[in-house]
């Protein structure tokens, strides 16, 4: 099962992912139509920065989702098969418990419907729109073991370089 995995050092802060996420959640899924729409679409991913590091943040679809625990109506639930944390708008009563419970601040308010809003991992797509839009590979949709291996390899290179044994 692929996961959305981030390499913040590659994020240039272009916000292409935010744009793509918004367009993906617009009925026509078309940039020009979305830009012209009366009710513009809302992104579920947020590029945060502290001035040095940019970090695209969206729902992590936790295996122990605190938002699900906090939700009294069952609007948020974990899909047993895929592990995705799914939101059902019709059950949401707008109590914002999930907003408070999520440690990453990635549940926001849909200001039009006054219900919660979060990443749904693009059910209509194989690769989520943000990952597909990211031109630098800061957001990738891949298996966790592959990501970890890559990271181990990178650490190895750095380690060897520092020891001056590899040029």
């Amino acid at each position, binding site marked *: 099962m692929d996961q959305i995995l981030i390499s913040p050092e590659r*994020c*240039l*802060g*272009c916000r292409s992912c935010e744009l793509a996420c918004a367009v993906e959640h617009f009925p026509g899924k078309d940039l020009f139509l979305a830009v012209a729409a009366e009710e513009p679409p809302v992104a579920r991913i947020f590029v945060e*920065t*502290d001035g040095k590091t940019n970090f695209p943040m969206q729902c992590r679809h936790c295996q122990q989702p605190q938002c699900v625990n906090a939700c009294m109506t069952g609007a948020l639930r974990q899909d047993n098969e895929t592990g995705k944390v799914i939101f059902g708008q019709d059950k949401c009563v707008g109590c914002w418990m999930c907003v408070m419970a999520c440690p990453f601040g990635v549940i926001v308010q849909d200001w039009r419907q006054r219900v919660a809003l979060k990443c749904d991992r693009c059910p209509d797509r194989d690769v989520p729109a943000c990952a597909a839009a990211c*031109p*630098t*590979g800061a957001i990738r949709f891949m298996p966790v073991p592959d990501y970890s291996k890559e990271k181990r390899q990178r650490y190895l290179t750095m380690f060897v370089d520092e020891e001056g044994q590899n040029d």
Partner: protein
Amino acid sequence: MKMSLDKKTIDRAARQMLERTRADGVKTVWDRLEAQQPQCGFGLLGICCRNCLQGPCRINPFGEPSRGVCGADADTIVARNLLRSVAGGTSAHVDHAYEVVEALDKIAKGQIDYQIQDEHKLKAIATKLGLETDQKDITTLAGEVAEKAFESFTNHTSETMGWLAAWAPQERIDTWGKLGVLPRNADREIREAMHQTTMGVDADPINLLLATVKQGLVDGFAGLKLATDIQDIIFGTPQPVKAETNLGVLKADHVNVVVHGHVPLLSEKIVEWCRRLEEEAKAAGAAGINVAGICCTGNEVLMRQGVPPATNFLGQELALATGAVDLMVVDAQCIMPSLINVAQCYHGEIVTTMPISKIPGAHHVPFTLEEADQQAREIVRRAINSFKKRDMNRVQIPEEKVPIVAGFSVEAIIGALAKINAEDPLKPLVESIKNGAILGAVGTVGCNNVKFTQDLVHVELVKQLIANDVLVVATGCSAHALGKAGLLHPDATKNVAGPGLRQVLTAVGEAAGLGEPLPPVLHMGSCVDNSRIGDLLIALADYLGVAVKDLPVAASAPEPQHEKALSIGTWAVAMGILTHVGLPPHVLGSATVSGALTGQPVESLLGGKFYVEADPVKAAEGLINHLKSKRKALGL
């Protein structure tokens, strides 16, 4: 990333107004910078291209794609974008110059109600252009000079642009000729730059950089130099003038008119009509009419009319936040569209005047040279009318105002020096440089940029320089920043300048009968008046019998913002001058391009290069070291 007030500006008047806008929920340029975070990395690196509809293309600096759809790589895209930006800056200055030449032409034809204020300069320029001046009446000569100027914008030959051929040193003309960068005429070169950068033309980053150098020369000679020369002829060559600066120059009991932008054609008339309609203002209950300036229109009327500068680029919204500006009349360049919103929240009318520079929500008065008087009168009357609607309870003018001395044209500087040595006026200055009393000279120019704490880099850099006996000349918003910080005043010579510099400036001041030293920073005018700095350097090099590139001098745009800063900087580098910038232009996506601009490739060809340093203390050190190395090479 909430920015604290002292990170936003060092200007206390600006801080006071920022507290006010924050309390009132009025957005300013600082809020908008915050809202723009994070800014696009591709744009910052210059590796996005929108030059055709197959794009936009972006190059991944960490891997693929490494080419745009057409195959252009990062080097090509960065160099193309830079050339377009520099051409943008160049066209702003050339367009400005064209307007004033048009005015001179119409004066010569008796079509407009403007006069020639400086016949002496007209003759001097005509002589340099090879025109016969004897026995000719002034209007005929003005017409001939205008004709020559028009030829520098557009001609039908491949000869070198006349204004450059007449004023550039031969050593430079030879250097530029060898590189193939001598411009023919301004319009043609700007057009060619647009052609060269369009999809599928030039892909060679070095060829594109050479074309960029050519744009710099167009800017320097057909933009800056031409504009200054003609403006001096029409409006007079500046002489030292005393004034005050910062928001405290606004007056609660007066009608306050602010002129903002760059071109003096209308603002001179506004100043005149503010004086003429004084009685109407009094009848409306005001104590009189007060004119103040912002940006380079402000500098133009400061230099020639002593009009106080209210603030510089980043302060333009804050001037309106005083609630005391009854009318702000703008021409072109550096005018924030957000002025309308701020004026709506506080008070005052924004009047646009040029066909190419309109803002929704502003009142537009289509300015023409033919009807300049009627239009200026109408605008001042609108200001009086606006004053009547002003809510006095909402007026909050900061107390800050600082005395300044401005008006240092080359003619004024040489005039002061001539009081020491009438035969050989440059001698005292050159001797002071030779004996080390003055280490060298740095020109600080250009904008504010909201990415810096407003004025901080200008002021801290210059304090270091003058404390180390470096003479500073300044223009544009840099001069405003230094003025607000008290550095355009003789007291700064006493308190901040190093001993050598202090002694020279004191001697010149006394000899010139000023009863006080010259200020350690000489305000030479607007951004187009950077040509005055160029003229001074050419005269000094000529006197010493060396090339400009060998002089112990440097340039600095500490807080650059506008494309014009890039074109001015390119001209300075082409003249052979080390040019410091507080932040790099959008070129870091190409190591080839950024490396060439700041390194050996450009320096070996031109003698100058760019030097990027954001820290003012380190930059001062770098510039001082440069001056020392140039001194050493000259055997000083």
